[in-house]
């Protein structure tokens, strides 16, 4: 049987949306799905080393409590999903070019930096969640 597929597109820099998208991704991966995560727009900024070190996230009430209680944050959930199944993370080439960022500005989680056409190929025939 072909492995069921899930695609998750992370757009928002809000901590709650990042957390929800990555939580769904990691659980899907642990449950035997092929998961492809595409990170773009403000979400991409949240994967920068300096942002993660400073915990400089846009957080509402629940996001703030996640920080207070030191729950495993979105990037950790993705790492777990990778470790436990078939999950890949892709950074958006357009946003990186636009901002003049470099791959080494980001935490070591991206499998590749790709464009929309390449991601659409990976996402073909999958369920899609946009955050």
């Amino acid at each position, binding site marked *: 049987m072909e492995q069921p597929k899930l695609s998750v597109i992370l757009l928002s820099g809000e901590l709650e949306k990042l957390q929800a998208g990555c939580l769904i991704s*990691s659980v899907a991966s*642990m449950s035997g799905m092929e998961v492809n995560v595409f990170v773009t727009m403000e979400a991409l900024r949240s994967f920068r080393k300096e942002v993660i070190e400073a915990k400089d996230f846009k957080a509402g009430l629940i996001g703030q409590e996640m920080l207070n209680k030191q*729950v*495993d944050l979105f990037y950790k959930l993705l790492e*777990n999903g990778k*470790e436990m199944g078939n999950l890949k993370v892709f950074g958006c080439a357009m946003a990186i070019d636009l901002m003049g960022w470099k791959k080494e500005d980001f935490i070591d989680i991206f499998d590749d930096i790709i464009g929309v056409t390449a991601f659409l190929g990976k996402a073909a025939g999958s369920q899609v969640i946009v955050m």
Partner: protein
Amino acid sequence: MSEEVSITKTIDARGSYCPGPLMELVKAIKHGQVGDVYELLSSDSGSAKDVPEWVNKMGHELIYCKPEGDFWRIAVRKTK
């Protein structure tokens, strides 16, 4: 009923939030041997629904899932 089950390892994930307890269990099962029984302790009430769902989906065997005080005790046998 199944009090004679021998537990390979008890994983105490109390205090951890979703999906932490499930993740701990999945890790143990992934690295364990077929036939191993893992008992998960979780204070996250979602675990009582989510863990059996995962076990069922992945084809492992749920031995019990019972409340005990303010936490849940869930045992799973790795079947493959």
